């Protein structure tokens, strides 16, 4: 509809299109709203931006935070919340605040602060996608920022040591997961049968916890007990992402194109044959050409219909 839009974000692994919660939120929203977004995952080149990821670039406009990116997409008429009532829109804002206050500290802790997780999984993964020598500095900086955020927002008295803060944030995160599970209940998405902004945010926060294989996994184990949330994540992955890691359209589309090409070639061949036969018959004076050509056309039609059934 509008100018082409490019999204720069962290790539994915373990079956996810991205490991970064905010990037994943934006990608999910774009899929839900049908926004045509070219996704550029951050790789070892120096040209892709590393800070403030995810970043949306459209013509000359550069937008960096998920909330602002979603607002921009909505202004471009890619609105996934079209059918929500005013109260549901208010609920969306409230639940997003709940996720940020209660779940995000524990998520940051699992990824960036928990020593075993950070050293064996997070740091190598991110460092492999950042060019040297930035790869020596940036993961450490992200880890320090995460710890800082946790301590400043949750670390005051009466919690005096890091272990007490950790215990509190994991307890809050588990409570938040329980609340989300109760709110989701048995429905497919949070507001009925179509996914909305809230689904994008919940998916963005939950999917990394659910899928990434860490050595220390208390939050993941708790999440796996809440089967409706796991089903929610899996549904979105299979319906909207189809195992894409690079952001290309799914392979089904490619086979459909190939089938269409084959069909076109066959039809062309058939019509060439028919023309030749037509010419031959016109040149020979004895037989009237009418019936034979109709028979040939019918045969051509029969042959092409099984091929029609093959392509989706």
């Amino acid at each position, binding site marked *: 509809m509008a100018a082409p839009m490019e999204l720069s974000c962290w790539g994915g692994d373990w079956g996810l299109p991205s490991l970064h919660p905010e990037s994943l939120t934006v990608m999910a929203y774009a899929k839900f709203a049908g926004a045509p977004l070219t996704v550029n995952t951050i790789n070892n080149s120096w040209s892709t931006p590393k800070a403030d990821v995810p970043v949306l670039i459209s013509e000359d406009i550069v937008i960096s935070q998920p909330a602002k990116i979603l607002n921009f997409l909505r202004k471009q008429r890619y609105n996934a919340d079209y059918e929500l009532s005013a109260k549901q*829109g208010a*609920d969306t804002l409230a639940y997003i605040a*709940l996720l940020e206050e*209660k779940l995000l500290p524990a998520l940051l802790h699992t990824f960036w602060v928990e020593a075993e997780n950070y050293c064996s999984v997070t740091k190598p993964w991110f460092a492999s996608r950042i060019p040297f020598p930035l790869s020596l500095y940036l993961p450490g900086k992200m880890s320090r920022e995460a710890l*800082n955020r946790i301590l400043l927002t949750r670390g005051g*008295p009466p919690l005096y040591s890091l272990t007490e803060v950790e215990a509190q944030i994991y307890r809050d995160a588990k409570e938040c997961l329980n609340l989300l599970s109760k*709110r989701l209940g048995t429905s497919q998405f949070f507001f009925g049968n179509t996914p909305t902004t809230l689904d994008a945010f919940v998916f963005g926060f939950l999917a990394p916890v659910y899928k990434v294989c860490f050595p220390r996994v208390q939050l993941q184990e708790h999440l796996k007990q809440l089967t409706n949330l796991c089903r929610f994540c899996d549904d979105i992955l299979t319906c909207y992402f189809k195992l894409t890691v690079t952001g290309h359209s799914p392979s089904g589309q490619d086979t459909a194109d190939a089938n269409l090409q084959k069909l076109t070639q066959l039809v062309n061949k058939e019509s060439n044959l028919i023309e030749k036969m037509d010419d031959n018959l016109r040149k020979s004076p004895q037989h009237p050409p009418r019936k034979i050509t109709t028979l040939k056309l019918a045969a051509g039609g029969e042959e092409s219909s099984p091929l029609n059934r093959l392509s989706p």
Partner: protein
Amino acid sequence: MSLVAEAFMNQLAAAEPWPENAALYQQLKEDQILLSDNAASLAVQAFLQMCNLPVRVVCRANAEYMSPSGKVPFIHVGNQVVSELGPIVQFVKAKGHSLSDGLDEVQKAEMKAYMELVNNMLLTAELYLQWCDDVTVEEITHPRYGSPYPWPLNRILSYQKQWEIRRKMKAIGWAGKSLEQVLEDVDQCCQALSQRLGTQPYFFNKQPTELDALVFGHLFTILTTQLITDELSEKVKNYGNLTAFCRRIEQQYFEGHDKDSSATASARYAKRSLLR
């Protein structure tokens, strides 16, 4: 607190009924207390009034330092001291009084989500306005915050607090926001609250809950506090049902009781803007 300590405290709390001499501590009303602290204190007072639990408000200059978590208000009940609305709600529940028992699971989830929304957006916006907006800091916050102390202690304490709050704002990404963006966020939050409230008397229809107390505390304080400009209170006044909600709770729970509590609490700053 670990789970064991919490269970122990709940047991202690449950052992005794609510005493007559419960006290709520906050900073000095006329000269010292700031917008965000007053909002928190009013929310707790409203909550206790809704539970019909008597409490007297005691103003002390060092209330912040007496509090176990460093935040006001805190209540002194029997021989226990509990601060902030969340733990106070738990404590009161352990004593057998609760406003949210009648809610089902989904409604409880919603209530918690909306309380987080108020804390995340309204409270952070109030803190931003008080401590990160230079004009307000110079003219209102610094003079008020250090007013009980002699020079140079008053300046040192308020700079220390300002530095702490600015660090927190930077960590959560609010340091880069401009005042207009913060007011936009306040507007969005008020819109969400207004849409959720609709035409009902309280957020969960007939009975008030801790969410109503919290929203009342913040909105009433914003509406009745005179700052450098009126922009913040204008944002709230745009939503008629929110102002009616505040008036209703004020009339029901605060008028008729000692006039000291909230009605004159709003005559805080130099001028008073009346709740119309």
